[in-house]
């Protein structure tokens, strides 16, 4: 099977290109597939606050909807550069015959259970754009076309589903695209385990191959250690630490 990963990285306040190179290295090591790194749209879509950063961080996250065109592979994993692969779990998704897979459940590393996030006044279920696995089927083509359309008309969809129009989120655009392409019904196929997030309120320390993650639980400092697990690392300070590793 001709499979590979597409990683988007646009440098701004954070050197995503450095993260993307490390992400590509890990994709090859753990999944045994090649990667291409694409520079996303340079347009600043919005700014966002992170708990670990005083100033707002510029957010350049447009252009993911071009992943199908940008991918030279028959089956592709679309990855955020800040997704830290440390296992071969995603191989099972590459071998699946489902056209399009993304995470539907998520669990913050300091949370007690996986949850499905909902957004907007209609409490629409969220599908995470952090990791997507897709083929080149008609359905996938439709999903990316819809994703592109929603990105282009984000304000309209934000008003329709009543969510924040000023802060573009690929997760919302993807969720609505999947909803549209499933005829308004909830998609049934997803990556069958939760996306593990390390939130910006946590502090990470990498002591290979173990992550020491510190956080506050009821104002009390706590920590856990994890290894060989895929993590989505959030927060400017934590991401800078990852950049410094390489």
């Amino acid at each position, binding site marked *: 099977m001709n499979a590979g990963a597409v990683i988007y990285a646009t440098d701004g306040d954070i050197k995503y290109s450095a993260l993307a190179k490390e992400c590509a290295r890990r994709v090859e090591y753990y999944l045994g597939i090649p990667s291409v790194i694409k520079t996303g749209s340079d347009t600043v879509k919005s700014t966002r606050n992170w708990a670990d950063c005083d100033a707002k961080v510029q957010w350049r996250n447009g252009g993911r909807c071009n992943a199908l065109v940008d991918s030279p592979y028959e089956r592709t994993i679309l990855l955020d550069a800040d997704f830290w692969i440390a296992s071969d*779990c995603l191989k*099972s998704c590459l*071998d699946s015959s489902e056209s399009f897979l993304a995470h539907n459940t998520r669990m913050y590393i300091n949370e007690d259970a996986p949850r499905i996030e909902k957004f907007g006044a209609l409490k629409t279920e969220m599908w995470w754009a952090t990791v997507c696995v897709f083929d080149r089927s008609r359905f996938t083509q439709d999903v990316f076309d819809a994703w592109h359309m929603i990105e282009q008309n984000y304000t309209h969809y934000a008003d329709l589903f009543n969510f924040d129009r000023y802060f573009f989120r690929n997760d919302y655009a993807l969720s609505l695209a999947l909803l549209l392409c499933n005829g308004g019904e909830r998609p049934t196929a997803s990556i069958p*385990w939760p996306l593990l997030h390390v939130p910006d309120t946590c502090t990470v320390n990498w002591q290979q191959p173990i992550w020491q993650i*510190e956080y506050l*639980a009821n104002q009390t*400092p*706590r920590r856990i250690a994890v290894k060989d697990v895929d993590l989505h690392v959030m927060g400017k300070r934590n991401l800078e630490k990852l950049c410094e590793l390489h």
Partner: protein
Amino acid sequence: MDTDKLSQRIRARFDHNQAKRVLREKYRAKMQFALSGGMWHAGPELITQCNLCLAHGHFNPVMADIHDNPVKVDAEELKTQALERWQEQMNAWHVEHEELRKQR
């Protein structure tokens, strides 16, 4: 040495319950596998289903995968892969669980 950081780190107690929860999610993820175009969760339920089919002479049954897609499978192959993966990951889970218990 930054003594403030050091004392804060010593105070930060290892959260055994949370580590256990994360470990459970990690190994649940590792128990998923793809075969014959379907996606499966390696565990007693799947192994029992395969055993039931084989016991009744249904060697190539149609079974629903975790996405509720009906998939025609080789029951013997599915059972072998499910059993191997389940035991391999349960053993790894056990080892890591014991390591975590020693953390302070």
